[in-house]
C-alpha cells in the first residue's frame, strides 16, 4: 500500500517544479502554481497507483494534501 501523503507531495512537486521540501501539506491545492488539468491528472495517476477509483472532484472539498490523505485513509 502506498503512503498517500508522501505520494501526493511528490506529485505536486512534479507538477509545480518545486522541491518536495517546499510543498506544504496544509496549502490549498489552488494556491500551487499548477495547470488546471493537474488535479485531474494527479487523480488519474493515483487511480493507477492504488487500483482504486478516485473522484477528481474530491480535491475541491479536501483541498490540501493533509485533508485529502486523511479522507482517503477514512475511505478504507
Amino acid at each position, binding site marked *: 500500500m502506498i503512503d498517500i501523503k508522501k505520494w501526493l507531495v511528490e506529485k505536486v512537486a512534479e507538477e509545480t517544479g518545486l522541491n518536495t521540501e517546499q510543498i506544504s501539506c496544509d496549502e490549498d491545492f489552488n494556491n500551487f502554481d499548477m*495547470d488546471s*488539468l*493537474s488535479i*485531474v*491528472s494527479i*487523480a*488519474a*495517476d493515483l487511480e493507477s497507483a492504488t487500483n482504486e477509483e478516485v*473522484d*477528481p*472532484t*474530491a480535491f*475541491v472539498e479536501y483541498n490540501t494534501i493533509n485533508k485529502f490523505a486523511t479522507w482517503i485513509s477514512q475511505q478504507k
Partner: protein
Amino acid sequence: MDISTKVTWNPYSRGYFQDPYPHLKTCRENNPVHQGIHEAWMFFKHSDISKLLRHPNLGVSGLSEYLKEKEPYIFKNTETCPYLAQSTQWWPMYLNGNLHKKIRVALGKVFQALEWEPVILKAVERVNARYQSLNKFNLANYCADYIFMITSEIFGIDQYGTTAKIKEYSNLLARSQDLFVSKQFYQQINTSLLWGKQLFDRSAYREKIEAALKEQQLDYTSDHIYSLMTISLMATFETSKDNLCMALYEIIKRKHIIHLISESTPQQLNILIEELFRFTSPLQYTVREVQSPLNYNGISLPTQSKLYLCLASANRDPEVFDRPDEIIPDRQPNPHLSFGGGLHFCLGANVARLELRHCLQPMVQLLKDYTFDDHGESNVQWAKQIFMRNAQSILLKRNAL
C-alpha cells in the same frame, strides 16, 4: 434555503454514472442556475436552456483553442507530436461566425446527398442475421455493430484497421470533449488521432467533402479535411450507437412498448422515436460561451464565461413535459432539446431519425425473445462519461422456451 446549503452539480456524486437523473432533478428543483463543482455556470430548466441555445450574446466555446492552450502541459517531457488542436480545428459544433456557417453548409450538403436509406436497410438485415442465433449477447455491441456497418460503408473505412480499433478511435474522439479529462487520457486520444490519419485515404466521402469546401470557397489543408472526417465519423457513429443502445435498453424494460412498436404505423413510430430521443438524451450537456458581457436573470456573466446547459435535465422538466420520467409513446407536442437548438442544431439529427425509423421494428422483433442476463438491469456497466451517456455492457439472454 441558504444558498450555501443548496445542492451543487457534481457528476461524481453517488450513482451518477448509473443514473444521472435523480441528481439532475435535485439540481433542477433546488438550484436550477448555479456554479457547479468545476465553477462554471450550470443551467437545468427547459425554459432557460431553450432561450440560451438561441441567445444572440452566446457562441460556442472553442475546443481546438482550449486544446492548443493545453498542449504544452499535456505533452511536456514527451516526444509526442501534438495533434489534438489541429485535428479538432474544424469541428463545427465548436465554431462560430462565417466559418461555422460555411462548414455547416458544406457538411450539410454532403450529408443530404448521401444514400443513407439502402445502407441502413442492409445493415439492419446484416446485424440481425449476425445475432439471431446467439443465446447471449451484449446489447451495446449489437447497436455498435449496426451503426458501424452504416458508418463504415458511408465513409468507406472498412478496408483499414480493425473494427475494434475504429470503435475505440471514435470513442476517444467523443471523450476529448468531456469534462475532467486527464493529461494521460489526452495523450491516448492524441495517439489515436495520429493513428487515424490514414483511415480516410480511400474514402469517397472525403472527395465529396473537398468538393463541397471548394463550392464554399474555403481554403483548406489536409489537416482541415482530416478534422472534418474525424467529426463526421464520431458524430455519425458514437452518438447514433449510444442513442440506439439507450433506447433499446429502455424498450426491453417495457414489454408493452415492444408490442406497440411492432404494431405502429410509420407516423406513430416517428412520434415514439422523438419520445425516445427526449427520454434518453444521449448528448446530456452542451456548452455556450458569453461573447459580450451579459446579465441573465440578475446574474452578471462576463465575456468568456462558460455556460453548461443540461439538455438531459431540460428533457425531464415537468414544467414542459407531463410525467417526464415516463416514456409516453404518443407524446405530442414534444419540444425536447436532444439535438440542441439554434445555429448549432445537430447536423446529423435526420440521419439519427432515419436509422431508428428503419431499425426499431426489425430489432424489437429479435429482442422480444431476450431479457437481461444475470442480475437483470442492475448488471449494466455504464461508461464514466459525462457529456455523452452510454453503456459499455448490457448483457442479454434468450428467454427460456
